Each structure stands twice: as structure tokens, then as C-alpha cells.
């Protein structure tokens, strides 16, 4: 995924020298670029524009630019009256717990299955892999009932963030990703550490984790992104509006909020993922390719 000058692709150097091919391809690529700008960037730019446009202008002339000036008040109102700030904070808290749960389960589980590898590892592995092949919908109702009435302890996790964090940890995909990464770490280092007297905990904390930074980054980013995107589950288990994340809150205030303010609220909701993407672009794209690779 580097900006390579690689001339070893589909088009051979000889073909590259032919003007017709060169210009034809350039034209196609320019077309693609324009298309990508319109399709990929267009809606977001439109949202940014409309977030600071008076409601009436957006309704009557949605695609013109600032006929009656900008309405920065939309953003302010979204933050103060619609309390986007609060839901923003909820979203972050949920994402942090989501991330922590996924990382804890994936690292400890991956470590145990890959490095410590007890005899029953294959059984756990099999049971875990099986969940990869079961569509998520199967879990929806029983998991929901379990959260509504937690077995054994006779209380409810509805309206508690644990209802999101705990099930989030059960991601077989992450564990597999982590385990495969650990599998490829050089075993000699583990043996050497063990001879030096390092127990499994030191091995995990001081050797394996520091060596796994790239994969930890990928899992982290995807955990945060997944949490930011989650809708159906938080909709079901977080019924108290004050605790809801943006994704649940936005649809429920749609009808009560003036359009300009609503679009401003949506724009604010996009900011963190977009900023995160721009900063960690490489990790994102590598992780996405990796996702394909492991699924493939």
C-alpha cells in the first residue's frame, strides 16, 4: 500500500511507453479519482456545509452554497440544547470499555492458546472458531434476555454499559488474529526468557505484548471503530436517553430537532472517526487488508 513506483504490475514497461495506453489509463484513473472525490468526499463535505447553513436554506436549496450566510449557531445549539456533548462523551466511554474488553480477552486468550498451549487448547479453539460461523442474529434475542435478567445474580444489566462491554469481548475474530500473530513470534525468545526464570505473566507482559504492537494497534482501531458504529445492541440495552451513544440518540431526536441543528449534530458525530482515520490511515488500511487476508 505504499506510493510505489512499481512498474511490475499488469502493465508492462513496454506497454507503458505506448502513449495510447498511458493516456487511456491516466484518463481512466483521473475519472476514478473524480468519482472517488464525489462519492467518497462529497457527502461529507455536503454535511459539513449544511451543518453551518440555516435550516430553511438547506430545505429549499440543498445544493447551493450559503445563500443567506452561515449559521454557526447550529453547531453551538447542537452542542448545548441537543446535548451532543453528553452523547459524545457516552460514545467515548462505551468505546473505551469496548476496546479494553476486546483487548483483554484477545491478548490473554491468544497468549494462552498460542504460547502456553494447554492440552485442551484445541477444544477451546474449536468452540471459539465455531462462533465465527454462526450469524450474529442467533445471539440477539437470548443475549438480550440474558441482559434483561442476568442468570444466577437476579439483576438486570439493562442501562448499564457492562451490557455492551462484556459481550463485546467475545470476538473470536480478534482472538484468532492475536493467536496467529503470537504463533509467528520466534519461539526461541520465549524459551530463552523461560530459562532466565520468567514466569508466564512476565513473559506475557514484558516480552509478548511489547513485540505485538502492530497487531495491538490494528485490533484497537477496529475495536473503537466497531463500537462507534454499533447501533442495534446499544439501542436494545441502553434505554435511558442520558446514557445512550450518538448512534442510538441521533435517530430518536431526528423528529424533534430542527434540520440544521440535526445535521450539525451528525457532523460532530463524524468528526472523531474521520480524524482518527486521517491520523491512523496506514493502520486502518493495513488492518482492512489484513481482515480480508484472515477471512480469506
Amino acid at each position, binding site marked *: 500500500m505504499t506510493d510505489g513506483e512499481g512498474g511490475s504490475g499488469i502493465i508492462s514497461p513496454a506497454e507503458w511507453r505506448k502513449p495510447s495506453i498511458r493516456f487511456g489509463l491516466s484518463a481512466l484513473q483521473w475519472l476514478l479519482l473524480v468519482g472517488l472525490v464525489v462519492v467518497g468526499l462529497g457527502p461529507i463535505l455536503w454535511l459539513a456545509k449544511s451543518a453551518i447553513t440555516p435550516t430553511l436554506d438547506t430545505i429549499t436549496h440543498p445544493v447551493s452554497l450559503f445563500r443567506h450566510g452561515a449559521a454557526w449557531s447550529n453547531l453551538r445549539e447542537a452542542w448545548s440544547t441537543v446535548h451532543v456533548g453528553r452523547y459524545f462523551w457516552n460514545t467515548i466511554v462505551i468505546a473505551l470499555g469496548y476496546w479494553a474488553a476486546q483487548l483483554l480477552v484477545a491478548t490473554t486468550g491468544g497468549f494462552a492458546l498460542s504460547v502456553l498451549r494447554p492440552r485442551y487448547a484445541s477444544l477451546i479453539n474449536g468452540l471459539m472458531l465455531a462462533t465465527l460461523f454462526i450469524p450474529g442474529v442467533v445471539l440477539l434475542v437470548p443475549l438480550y434476555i440474558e441482559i434483561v435478567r442476568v442468570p444466577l445474580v437476579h439483576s438486570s444489566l*439493562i442501562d448499564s454499559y457492562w451490557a455492551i462491554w462484556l459481550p463485546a469481548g467475545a470476538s473470536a475474530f480478534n482472538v484468532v488474529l492475536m493467536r496467529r500473530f503470537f504463533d509467528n513470534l520466534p519461539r526461541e525468545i520465549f524459551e530463552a526468557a523461560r530459562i532466565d526464570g520468567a514466569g508466564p505473566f512476565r513473559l506475557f507482559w514484558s516480552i509478548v505484548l511489547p513485540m505485538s504492537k502492530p497487531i495491538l494497534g490494528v485490533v484497537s482501531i477496529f475495536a473503537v471503530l466497531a463500537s462507534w458504529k454499533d447501533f442495534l445492541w446499544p439501542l436494545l440495552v441502553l434505554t435511558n436517553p442520558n446514557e445512550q451513544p450518538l448512534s442510538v440518540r441521533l435517530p430518536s431526536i431526528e423528529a424533534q430537532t430542527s434540520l440544521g441543528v440535526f445535521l450539525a449534530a451528525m457532523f460532530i458525530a463524524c468528526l472523531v472517526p474521520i480524524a482518527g482515520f486521517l491520523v491512523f490511515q496506514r493502520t486502518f488500511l493495513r488492518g482492512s487488508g489484513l481482515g480480508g487476508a484472515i477471512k480469506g
Partner: protein
Amino acid sequence: MKSLRRIATAVAVAGLVALCATAAALGSRSSSVTISVASLIPGSTQAAVNQFNSQVAQFEKANPGITVKPVEYQWTGPTFAAKLAARTLPTVFEVPFTDARTLGDNGQLADLTPYAQKLSYFKEFNPAVIAEGTDAKGQVVALPKGAYAQALHYNRALFAEAGLNPNKPPTTWAQVRADAKQITARTGKPGYVEMAKDDNTAGWILTTVVYSLGGRMETGSGTSAKATLDNKYTIQALNMLKAMRWTDNSMGSNFSYSWGDINQAFAAGTVGMYVSGSDIYTNLVQAYNVNPSIYGIAPIPLAHNKNAGVLGGGTLAAVRPDANKAQLAAAVKWMSFFYEEPQISKTQAIRNAQTLVANKQPVGVPALPLFNKRLYDISQTWIKPYINVPIAQMKPFLTGIFSENLIPEPEASTQSVYHALDAVVEAVLTNKDTNVVQMLQQATSEAQQAISQGA
């Protein structure tokens, strides 16, 4: 001098509040109780929230030892069952007329009977209204919050712009159709719109129209009720809708309005007429700051048929089944204070109206009496100085409604009946070639299945 007195009062009040707070804190734990109560729907204006909070403050002041925690609340199908099962509802919450009895029969609402019967005005309740909150065993499980009759809401400005008389809203469905056509022709705005989302509202409005023509959706009661969705009046109502949508093209381009969306569109001035509950003005103000001068309300046009009537419904307040005795007593006190007394006690009515006015909230929104017409008229005289809604513009509705034949919503499996009808309404509005009769037959069998299963 005046300001000095004001400061003195403020200090005294602050001292009193502090004293109460200390007393509550110092007082034995058993005598203080906290209840959470349903407040406003999510997304309400700050003024509406302030109004509610000052109601809470007044109540807490009058009832030391009771702490009231307001919780934003909107009754929606999916979340309600979940909250009920998970016991995360506020202590006092609201349910529509259609659900309370079934929930009570299932043991999902607290029994309020002993507390309710101690209310001095309990015997004055309109028997039909209190029956909505009484379960099969005769226990009172909910007290009324408000009752509405369906009404035709119209935009006076658009009427005038289209050359129609804003003081003469349509009184027959044929006139509704003609006026809608004229509004669209002259203003380019949809003349008549209808809720048509898959959230049971489409069925609710269709049932309203069918009632006004003389039809009914069910006969009998309970699980042995018979679904009669495919009666000739429903066909007539749908054909009228079809004509407005496809022949006159006077219904605009949005056919997926929800209850909130349609209010928003109306408040934005882009809708000629629509049908919704008579108490909708409160929401138009609280959520959308509607311009009062455009608002007009008229009774639902009734056909010349002795069965023709206006669909009426309402909301009840109920208490969680796991509330303890202290909470139950406090909850009923709150319900009486917040929902009932403003309609039956002069001092409370005036206090309530003053609080509403101070926060620029509507006073005098047309509603149906929870007690009787005589008491209602008396209560209206108490709050007369505070009425801030355009009462003159509501005259067409207020003059007619109390003599109308009010008909409750379908009793058995109400929401399922509405849901089955949703699809038919949407089909008529989004497909020119819809086979109305065939779709109604399918809806009838769906509704019948739900009724038989008691769902």
C-alpha cells in the same frame, strides 16, 4: 423597598429550602423516599424542561421527604416491553389507553386501588376513562393523564393563501379533498398528509377515518373478537386516500411521516391539513416552536350515519409493580399533583397554569374532560386569565367536540390491528395499482391471528 422585600423573600425561601433539605437529610431514612417519574419526551425545549423542573420543585416543597427524579420518557413499542421486563422504567410512567388493561391483567403494573380510592375526587372520574385503567379483577392500575379526540389540524396561513376561509375548515371528507386539491394547486404545498410509517400510526389514522364514516375494525371482545378490517367503510376511506394521492396529487411527496415527523412538517408550515390527537398543540410548541398564528383545529368530519363517531384515546400514568409501599404512596401523590389536581382543584389549576405561562408553555390546549363536562367548564374558568393558546382559532373544534359521539380505539390487540393496517395505507400511497380489497383481506387475517393469540 420593593427589591428589598424581594430579596428578603428570596432569602426566606432559600432558607426554607435549605431547612427542608436538611430536615430531609437529617430525618430518619424511612420517612424519606425517592421516586423517578416520567418527564418530557426526549428533545423537548429547554423552556419545557424548566417548566417541568419547577413543577417538581413545587411538589417537593409541598411534600417534604419525597424526592422526585425526572426521567425523559417516550412510550415506544420496542423499548417499553424491554424496560418493563428489565425493571428500568421510572417509578411513574405513562402508557396509552390501549395497553393499560392488558398490562394490568399480566401483573405488570402496581395495584393503586387503596391509594386511588383515598383521593377526594376519585368518584368524580369519568367512568369510561377510569375503566381504561382498571384491570379484569377490578383493581385500579393506572390513573388518567389526559384524553384526546382525534381532530383535523390545518394551517390557517395556507388556507388563506389558497383562497379558502381559515375560519371555515372542511366539515365533510369531500370538502377535505376539494380543499386539499385547492391548497396544492394554489400554494404548491401538500394539501392533506397522513402518517404512514410502519409504527402503527398509519393504522391509527385510518381507523379514525373509518370511525368517522361509520365503520368499526372489530366486533366482540377479548380473544374471541372478530376482526372486521375489510368492512366497506375501510374500502371507502382507502379509495378516498387513493383519489387524493393519485388523482388529485394533493398529498405531497413524503409518504413515511411518523407522529413526530408530521408535527415537524406542520410546524414548518409545509402541510395543509392532517389528522392527529386534539392535544397535539402542546407538542407543536414544546418541540417545534410552532408559529401560533398558523394553527387551526377542526372536528373530524362525520358522515351522516348513526354509527359515525370520533376516535378518542388517551394516556394513563401507572406505577412499576415492584415499587414499595412508601414509593407507591409517593407515586400516587405525584400523579395526583401533576396529572389530576390541575384539572379538579382551583388552586392547583392556577398554580399549574402560572408555571406553564412563566415558562412560555401552552395553557388551554383542547383536551377531553377526565372528569365530566361540568367540572371541565369550571376548571376552564379558573385558568382563563392564563390561556395563551390561540383559543379563537380553536373555536371550530371546541364548539363541536363535546356533543360528538366518542368511540374508543379497537379494544382487542389494538397495536396489532393498527400494524396490519399500516401496510395497506402505505401500499395505497406508494403504489397506484394497489388492490385495496385483497390487501385488506390479508390485513384482516393478520389481525385476526393476533387477536386470537391475544398478542
